[in-house]
């Protein structure tokens, strides 16, 4: 007989459905690397032959490198700030009894359910009304805003995953709150911190809707890609770039998901 319980008996139909679904998810994405090696300026079948010239073209594209650099900087800074804010916030809501906690969390999580265009527009108005110039800083600010909810969510689940008694035990043994944070809290939530950073990084690195409103003369990578999409001749180069981003983000996501699943060994009673 089967090893699994009656309720969990496998279903062949669902299995095929799942494979189809994964196909729907992946096949469109995988066309990008395929055409990036195709020796044809037009993105169409039939395939003409293998080439790496689009990659060479891309490597020599200075504006692309500048945009990539901009995006990398914005993503790093905004992910670091968002993770730090998420760390404070997650610690506060999981460790202290705060009056009005629910509405506060609601406000912090709000950017998850507000269309980005609205927040982008609102920030644009604020910044211009204050008389500041649009720049990568304003983009960074916007990205912090949309990343904080994700950082909070990631870190709250991490904080809830370990026993508060561990922090109390540390204080009880003579450690000050700060010392407890460095010696117990941070080591235990560190995988969550890293996962949060990587998640926020990807969100910022990929964000276009707000960046388009808020970037000044320095484009981020998505803005650069957007500007290239209008020129058919530049498309193969964009595909090459997209394929590279695809590979890198696959690696990063696998790594961060692996981190998320890497759990703290909880001290549990019994053996």
């Amino acid at each position, binding site marked *: 007989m089967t090893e699994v319980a009656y309720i969990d008996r496998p279903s062949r139909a669902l299995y095929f459905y799942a494979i189809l679904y994964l196909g729907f998810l992946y096949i469109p994405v995988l066309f990008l690397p395929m055409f990036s090696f195709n020796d044809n300026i037009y993105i169409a079948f039939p395939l003409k032959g293998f080439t790496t010239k689009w990659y060479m073209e891309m490597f020599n594209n200075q504006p692309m490198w500048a945009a990539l650099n901009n995006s990398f900087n914005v993503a790093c800074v905004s992910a670091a700030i968002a993770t730090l804010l998420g760390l404070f916030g997650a610690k506060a809501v999981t460790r202290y009894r705060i009056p009005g906690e629910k509405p506060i969390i609601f406000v912090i999580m709000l950017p998850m359910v507000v269309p980005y265009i609205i927040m982008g527009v609102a920030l644009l108005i604020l910044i211009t009304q204050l008389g500041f110039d649009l720049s990568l800083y304003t983009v960074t600010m916007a990205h912090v805003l949309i990343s904080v909810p994700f950082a909070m969510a990631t870190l709250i689940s991490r904080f809830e995953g*370990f*026993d508060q*008694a*561990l922090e*109390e*035990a*540390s*204080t*009880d*043994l*003579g*450690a*000050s*709150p700060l*010392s407890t944070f460095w*010696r*117990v809290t941070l*080591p*235990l939530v560190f995988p969550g911190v890293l996962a949060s950073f990587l998640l926020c990084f990807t969100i910022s690195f990929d964000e276009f809707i707000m960046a388009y409103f808020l970037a000044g003369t320095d484009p981020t990578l998505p803005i650069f890609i957007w500007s290239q999409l209008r020129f058919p001749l530049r498309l193969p180069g964009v595909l090459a770039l997209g394929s590279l981003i695809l590979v890198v983000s696959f690696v990063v996501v696998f790594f961060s998901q692996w981190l998320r699943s890497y759990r*703290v*060994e*909880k*001290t*549990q*009673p*019994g*053996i």
Partner: protein
Amino acid sequence: MTSNNDFVSLTDVSKHFGSVVAVDHLSFTISRGEFFSLLGPSGCGKTTLLRMLAGFESPTTGEIYIDGAPMSEVPPHHRPTNMVFQNYAIFPHLNVRANLAYGLRYDKIEKAEVGRRVEEALEMVKLPGFGNRRSNELSGGERQRVALARALIKRPKVLLLDEPLGALDKKLREEMQLELRALQESVGITFIFVTHDQEEALTLSTRIAVMTRGKALQVASPKDLYNHPVSVEVADFIGQMNFVEAQVMDVRNGEAVLDATGLGKITAPASSDFVQKGANIIVAIRPEKLILSAERRSDGLGAVQCTIKTSAYLGDRDHFYVSVDGCEKPFAVAIAETGANSDQSLDRQSIVWLSWADESLILLPRD
């Protein structure tokens, strides 16, 4: 400053969580070197009290003194207490040695001395050679020992234990009780021990505070609690007890004559003020102090006829439940297997005599 008698002292300590009163105006003292238990059902405030002693909660009213010093403005990391947590709270990212050494950093102890003390502590809790293990490589009993060693290595004035044996199975728990008692005697540190298990409290403690609804009902030695409970609630919580309502008819020479429901006219030692002529009181007697016999005994014990309802075999003793005319609840009678206070033919529905010695009756006030 302080004598040994009020090494730990609570004066009018309360704790409110919003509208919930967890601890309600407690005042008592604990002596140096005592093994003191806080005993009560869950939600009685015993853990809250322990956490106030450790500094994790601050009292809403009152003050806690340890060795003469008021504690209200002392944060947990500066208190002369250490705690063994309910689930042990062994740091999962550190090995056993690092767990033990964790708190010594704040005592400014030399490295060599730290190493020596860690080995010594491991020796003390019978875990030599466990230094490199991690918490997930330890059994429940081993974690318990590590938690104990980690707290004791700090040489606290007071060791707080929050149901440390609750998570262990029965056999291991009994073993650990003996070890814990021996350990406490050898280190001489004051232990304050939270438990809901009355047997455990009776076995381990020098004194026990019985708590319900945030109040201490009685603070006394295990023997006193068992033999001289001050209220029905305490008597009911510690061991098994039979209760009968009674009216005091006369008090003379330290003896009270009572009219007890179902038992009729009985006499009992009257030790307290509330036993006054005409007062309605409760008479209590332990199941093992009752005797069953086929014939009425001729040795002058109080006695009444009863019917055996059910019996339960408990290994080392038999429990009988017998009904007495006029009494609502049946009496529980415990008879040792040796048959010292029993007779033959204790079959169900048979009518027998239930007897007791007057000294074994306990008089309690009605609530």
